[in-house]
């Protein structure tokens, strides 16, 4: 992407922002690859589309509004009509078709994942309705598992393997990469690269049932050093707490329903149904991007997730206030 076209894109993105949409996850204002190339092509065809539409509107209005006498006696069609049909109906679309297909072929070449090793390889497992994110390490103990928050190094090329745990989903980070469906029994991959640090909204784009609306994730692009730091932090095992309240929460987690579904490495909890929670407290949101990860939200979520996200796999877990406080205290140690 040259500086020149980046500037042009910046200018046109202003158009969208001026529509009152600042902050929207717009793929027309990309922040990385391959979304940048897709957006360039997108702007091109959008402009062509607008020009053609206005041209036809102009001809339609010209036909409707031009001055004429009021003689409405039927007469034969004009012989000149054929020129309209040939030029406007055949030639114009044919030229547009050839040009657009040409640019499409070129773009396909550019957006294809480059050969060679990616900087980061991530496995994304789409569940109803959350995203499991795995960083495969050289050895099993180096593997990092998290949920709904994908950290990547800025300028690093990320290879993403897509696995469906249940139904079809679609992996989409509008500002970084177009969609790739996540299909049971099929090995799909995609790639992306962020060109500037930031947090990018990711969404499930294929209808997947009751809570399709709340199946978001985020891509956190950070400087390589910060990313490496994060990754090594995620590799650590949760410590057994020493504080008595935290310890009570730790025990609650292990003996209650929690451990049946969730994994916390270091706490003998190996549940595989819900998201891994070893570093829960380090995440920005809970419930697949639905709520900020605050103590209050977490408390409400644990007690009655069904009222917040009806249909979600997390059951309502009413518990005594003291028990709940202890659990929240323990979860807040999972940094």
């Amino acid at each position: 992407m040259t500086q020149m076209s980046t500037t042009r894109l910046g200018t046109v993105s202003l158009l969208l922002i001026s529509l009152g949409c600042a902050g929207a996850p717009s793929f027309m204002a990309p922040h990385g690859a391959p979304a940048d190339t897709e957006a360039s092509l997108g702007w091109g065809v959008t402009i062509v589309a607008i020009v053609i539409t206005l041209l036809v509107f102009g001809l339609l209005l010209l036909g409707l509004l031009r001055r004429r006498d009021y003689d409405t006696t039927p007469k034969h069609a004009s012989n000149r009509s054929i020129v309209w049909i040939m030029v406007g109906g055949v030639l114009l679309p044919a030229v547009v078709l050839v040009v657009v297909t040409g640019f499409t072929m070129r773009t396909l070449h550019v957006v294809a994942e480059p050969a060679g090793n990616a900087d980061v390889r991530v496995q994304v497992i789409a569940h109803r309705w959350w995203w499991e994110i795995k960083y495969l390490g050289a050895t099993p103990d180096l593997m990092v598992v998290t949920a709904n928050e994908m950290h990547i190094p800025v300028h690093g090329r990320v290879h993403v393997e897509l696995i469906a745990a249940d139904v079809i989903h679609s992996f989409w980070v509008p500002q970084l990469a177009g969609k790739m469906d996540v299909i049971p029994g099929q090995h799909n991959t995609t790639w992306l690269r962020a060109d500037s640090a930031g947090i990018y909204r990711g969404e499930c784009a294929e209808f997947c049932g009751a809570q399709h609306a709340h199946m978001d994730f985020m891509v956190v692009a950070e400087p390589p050093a910060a990313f490496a730091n994060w990754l090594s932090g995620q590799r650590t095992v949760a410590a057994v707490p020493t504080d008595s309240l935290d310890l009570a929460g730790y025990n609650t987690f292990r003996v209650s329903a929690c451990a049946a579904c969730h994994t916390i490495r270091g706490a003998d909890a190996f549940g595989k149904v819900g998201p891994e929670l070893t570093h829960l407290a380090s995440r920005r949101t809970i419930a697949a991007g639905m709520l900020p990860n605050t103590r209050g939200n977490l408390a409400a979520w644990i007690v009655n997730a069904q009222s917040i996200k009806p249909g979600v796999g997390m059951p309502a877990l009413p518990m005594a206030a003291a028990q709940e406080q202890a659990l929240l205290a323990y979860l807040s140690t999972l940094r």
Partner: protein
Amino acid sequence: MATQIPSFPASVVTESREIDERLERIWETPPGIVGQLSTVDHKIIGKRYLVTAFLFFILGGLEAAVMRAQLARPEQHLLSPEAYNQLFTMHGTTMIFLFAAPILSGFSNYMWPLLIGSRDMAFPKLNAVSYWLFLAAGTFIYGGALTGHAPDGGWFNYTPLTGPQYSPGLNIDIYALGLVLLGISTTVGAINFIVTIIKLRAPGMSINRLPIFVWSTMTISMSIIFAIPALTVALAFLFLERRFGFHFFDPGAGGSPLLWQHLFWIFGHPWVYIVVLPSIGMASDVIPQFCRRPLAGYAFVAMATVATGVLGFGVWVHHMFATGIPPISATFFGAAGMLISIPSGVSVFAWLATIYYGKPVFRTPFLFMAGFIALFVIGGVNGVMTAVVPFDWQLTDTYFIVAHIHYVLIGMNVFPVIGAFYYWLPKMTGRLLNERLGKWNFWLMFIGVNVGFFPMHILGLLGMPRRIYTYPAGIGWDTSNLIVSLGAYLFAIGVLLFIINVVISLRSGQPAGDNPWDASTLEWSTSSPPPSYNFAVIPTIGSRDPLWEGRLFGKMKSVLSRGPLLAEGRQTAGTSMLDAEPQFILGMPSDTLWPLIAAASLSALFVGLLLSAWSLVAVGGVTTFVSVAGWLWPRAEMARTESLDGGRSSGWWGTVCLIATEAAFFAYLLTSYFYLASRSTFAWPPAGPPSLRLVVPNTLILLASSGTMIWADRGIRSGSRARLRAGLLLTFLLGVVFLAIQAIEYRSKGTVPGDNAYSSLFFTITGFHGAHVAVGLLMIAVTSVRAWLGHFSPEKRFAVTNVALYWHFVDAVWLFVFTALYLVPRAW
């Protein structure tokens, strides 16, 4: 030189009151409930289609209104997610299946015979059953909705979300069965249109004189024949997987979720054209009337219509660009999709030229058609944008697509439909609609549709996915969503004005007269509303614009008030395929209750399938058979049919169409088999190729039965009724033996359908073939009874010919099935 009135062996007469009274006695629908339920009058059936489809439009609109209330503001809790998902599924299913196509069938049913100079459709009874089945399918689906089992998997219903594991409950079963039932209705309707246009045009109505609306409905009827079977196969797979443990879409058992998507879109993409081409055709016919000029480039527009229908079959992958298919094949399908912009462009510029060189008269029908052109361009151009593969990876499944489909469906279907109501309702009711109200109606709808749907493009570009029941505040989607909701309500007010206008018109509208628009086409030559027999004499057509001939050519080329009477009971003219030369006098059926009974029986069968009430399935099956036999049983009208040159009968053409759609059905079954075989990760077939021990002799038995059928058919041709009876009996016995051996093979296989996808396909394909053999046997049984009753002679043997045709088809299909299932695996 005066136009030659073609010679039918019937008296040529001039219109008169006496003739009118005589024809009225022959054609009128008797009053009373039985009369209403047994009528086969295309105009009454057409009106029923229009009213029923419009009621579904209102229901679908109310569903949309509730959804737009939910989405008007972020994070609202007006609807539960389940309720929202049911609503958007019902909205899509209703608008696409229960409104957009049937409303066009309504216009076609009502208008076609009037446009082509006939007294009815080719198969009036089929027409009646088509309507009853449409009503039944709609009631079936809404019955599910009202009992809390509305389908909730979206109108394209992707598996495995809609499979047994993730969608227990009746919701998706109702979708599957309801759409199969509707598919039967649509298919028989399409066959009726095809045969009507082949056989029933007035003399002189050669194909280059047909209104574009007829061309377009003809095109989509052909599309329906080949598209619906893909959906039926998909739905049958889905139902078998859900209810009987078969595997087609489950990758764990060798299936693939993409099989559903391929089958659905092989149907779905042509379906988009099926619901817009006829309405675009209506616009092509209405615009010229108000521009006071014949359509510019008629032949180009007609060819463009056909080309669009054909190209529509090559574009289904257009909907699957993000499924991981190789980019280069995606680009091929993208380019093929864009290719459709050429025929579309031809039509648009033909309208533009017609308007530019014409003298537009701004009456309400014309306003809707002019508005349609603007919306057509937006809906076409944004469709081309989605055909650009890399950009579509961003656009697909966002609100941009929602904007696109609404510009397509509202722009290309609803606008011409409302315009056509303003244009043709005066013909149907004899009363004009109010112009002032009509203009308010137009502007409210036109502004409403753009305010409501244009911002959806922006929402899509801003990253809003479709099918979400709510969205977070503060990420830039709030304002546009509010505008969308307001626009949708504005549009709804426009629709309300239309309903009010219709009600006022029915009560106190201005009398329309025969031809209120001074239009050029044939339907305006008869009275408004038309008499039950449409035309007192069979008209002879000399040009595309019979009512403008005096002013265009300075003389009349058509003869409208003089012609053959054809009034020995219900009769109409049958003509040749291209030039509409007289070929037949066709005896048309009397009113009958059989279509209603057949539809009710078939519906009962489907309700039985839904509820696993097998006794109801059995009763429904038997009564369906009895009513079809009763329906086909010869009646007096057969005697009124007279062949002038030995051309093919309507029944023969109908059988050919039926065979074409059935052949497509088996083609999709076998394609599914090869698709899953090619993707299979285990050996295919898992236990090696199936044994040839039983199937080879069985194949020979079935082939022999074709031989005996030919022998029987030749027999009656040479006048030997004994040979006919013996041949039919032999054929019947060979067919029974085939089924028996098939059953023995099933028992000896040692596998069951639920084992894996291969097994499921083996049993499904051979099972469907076996079912066709069984149906063929029933047909042979009925024909045998008739042979014993002495119904056939060398001259009267239509039924034998048609049953033989069907039987040979069933045998031919077996050769494909045998090759694919038994021989091909040996070559792998």
